[in-house]
């Protein structure tokens, strides 16, 4: 019995080995080509386990996912004969894997090189038809669709299925950028100047208006004050006239006496008198 078992053991191992060499698996994210002695015999393999003939068949697998072509920055001329610096990228995946193998050797790097060339050519053509303003501001879907339509058949020749082409950045060349900054600065300075002069203008208006109001207020008050004073003068004159008018002569007498007193009240005055006035009536004689 043991001899039978010991005989079975290596046979079992051999079977396993054979099984291992007769199958291959394709991952969910892969595409595979089956070769027989160097010749392509099968390209359409769903993910999972498949059979092959050991030693005679061999399998090559390729990344079936969405791959990226990231180009280097390139200068393009616009329709206005101005330069722009453009950086773009494309998204693609393997379409016809057999074609992919025969044209670019199934190499992602090679594929990207080829793709970059045709992409740049197409872009050069499209950019030359548009102005800078169009390129920057217009909806880029239109440009994208044009490029895709143009390039899909070309890429298809390499077994490549183009999914997306996008412009990552459009920049002005550095020498132009500095003049853009200059323009931006000048525009801001203009805005600043405008603000400041508007402020000065409004301030001037406000303070001039205030000054005017002040003048008007004072002038009106002055006029009214004079009126009042006049009124006072008139009223007092009226009172005097009415009162003194009751006996004009007596008023004259009384008032003159007061006037003489006031006029000569200073002790520094010197009066030179003749004693023949009424005052001195009894001065020289007692009669």
């Amino acid at each position, binding site marked *: 019995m043991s001899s039978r078992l010991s005989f079975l053991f290596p046979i079992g191992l051999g079977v396993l080995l054979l099984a291992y060499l007769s199958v291959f698996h394709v991952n969910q994210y892969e595409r595979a080509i089956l070769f027989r002695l160097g010749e392509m015999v099968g390209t359409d393999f769903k*993910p999972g*386990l498949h059979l092959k003939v050991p030693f005679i068949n061999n399998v090559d697998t390729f990344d079936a996912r969405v791959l990226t072509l990231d180009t280097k920055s390139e200068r393009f001329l616009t329709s206005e004969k101005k330069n722009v610096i453009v950086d773009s990228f494309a998204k693609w995946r393997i379409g016809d894997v057999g074609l992919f193998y025969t044209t670019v050797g199934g190499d992602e790097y090679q594929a990207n090189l080829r793709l970059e060339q045709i992409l740049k050519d197409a872009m050069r053509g499209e950019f030359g038809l548009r102005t800078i303003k169009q390129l*920057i501001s217009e909806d880029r879907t239109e440009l994208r669709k044009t490029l895709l339509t143009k390039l899909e058949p070309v890429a298809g020749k390499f077994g490549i299925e183009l999914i997306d082409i996008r412009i990552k950045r459009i920049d002005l060349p550095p020498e132009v950028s500095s003049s853009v900054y200059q323009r931006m600065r000048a525009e801001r300075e203009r805005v600043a100047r405008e603000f400041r002069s508007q402020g000065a203008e409004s301030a001037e208006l406000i303070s001039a*208006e205030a000054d005017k109001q002040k003048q008007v207020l004072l002038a009106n008050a002055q006029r009214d*004050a004079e009126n009042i004073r006049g009124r006072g003068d008139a009223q*007092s004159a009226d009172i005097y006239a009415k009162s003194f008018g009751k006996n004009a002569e007596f008023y004259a007498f009384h008032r003159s006496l007061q006037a003489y007193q006031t006029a000569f009240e200073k002790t520094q005055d010197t009066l030179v008198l003749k004693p023949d006035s009424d005052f001195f009536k009894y001065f020289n004689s007692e009669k």
Partner: protein
Amino acid sequence: MSSEQHNTSQPTPPPDWKAEADKYWRQVSRRGAAFYRDHQQLFSLPNLGALLGGALALTWLASGVYIVDEGNRGVVTRFGAYSDTTQPGPHWHLPVPIETVRIVNVEQQRFIEVGYSSRFAKAATLPQESPLMLTSDENIVNVRLAVQYQIHNAQDYLFNVKDSEPTLKQLTESVERAVIGRNNMDFVLTEGRSEIVAEIKREIQAAMDDYHAGITIASVNLQDAQPPEEVQGAFEDAIRAREDKQRLINEAEAYANEIIPKARGAAARLLQEAEAYEAEKVAKAKGETERFEQLLVEYEKNPAITRKRLYLEAKEKLYSGSNKIMIEAERNAPQFYMPLQAMPNSHPAAPNPRTEPERGGEASADKGTVRKPAANSELRPSRSKP
């Protein structure tokens, strides 16, 4: 084997552990050997091989056990082909090489930064490019975004797109420039921020869905939208200018608010002074006239007496205060010399003016005998009638 010899007369010795262990081991090995002898068939090579193989098989099967943590998913492939996505919890898959499982975190919020890198970013892995871009009015702005995303479909994420995160970064750069290129600078820097961010998020999501990347954009955050460094000075000055404008206006209004009330105050004062003058004038008039009228009543009762009295009182007051010179000379008397300057200011002692005419009408000062020449020495006799 213990070398110690114990005297039997002594009490029971302490247990000797080494001796005991040796004795036990001998028992076990004797039993094991007996077992082996009795069941030799059992230990034949095939049986041993079977046992070993069985143990190996069990281990191999056990390797298919795996646990999916909360927030993760397990993506199971069978011979490479997608088979199933498992939820959090314990699971078992047919062991390698038949089935494999990859765990993907679908709840974690990941993020990428475009146009800058903070210390949380994987700065080394993704290249940073200039954050400057053109607006529709051909101005340049500096924009920094942070994009937060989540894997929402583990299967798509693993199998559809190579380099998902760099892809997202490229798309973000492309989309942000497209969106900002459609708007002018003022809009981008001020009111347009939220609208632009929403637009960018929409477009990135659309593209990622187009690629079936299995990623959902949670949010796009505008970290910063600034004019470029080269022109920031001018931009800041424009802001300062706006503030200056307001400041100038405020200052003027403050000035107006100061002088107008002051002017009103001055105007009121003018009026009040006038009114005071008016009242004073009228009151003075009233006072004087009342005084006069009262006097008038008395006068009219007895005019002659009152008249005389007033006259004499007035003259009395008048003459008592000042210097006096009495001249009794007739008309056509010779002119004489009157040294008025020498007169003192106070009440002089009354000289006897009658002695003077003997000297020929020579007037003399009350006290002074000094005959100093005066500027106005010549004086006519007073002829005013009182």
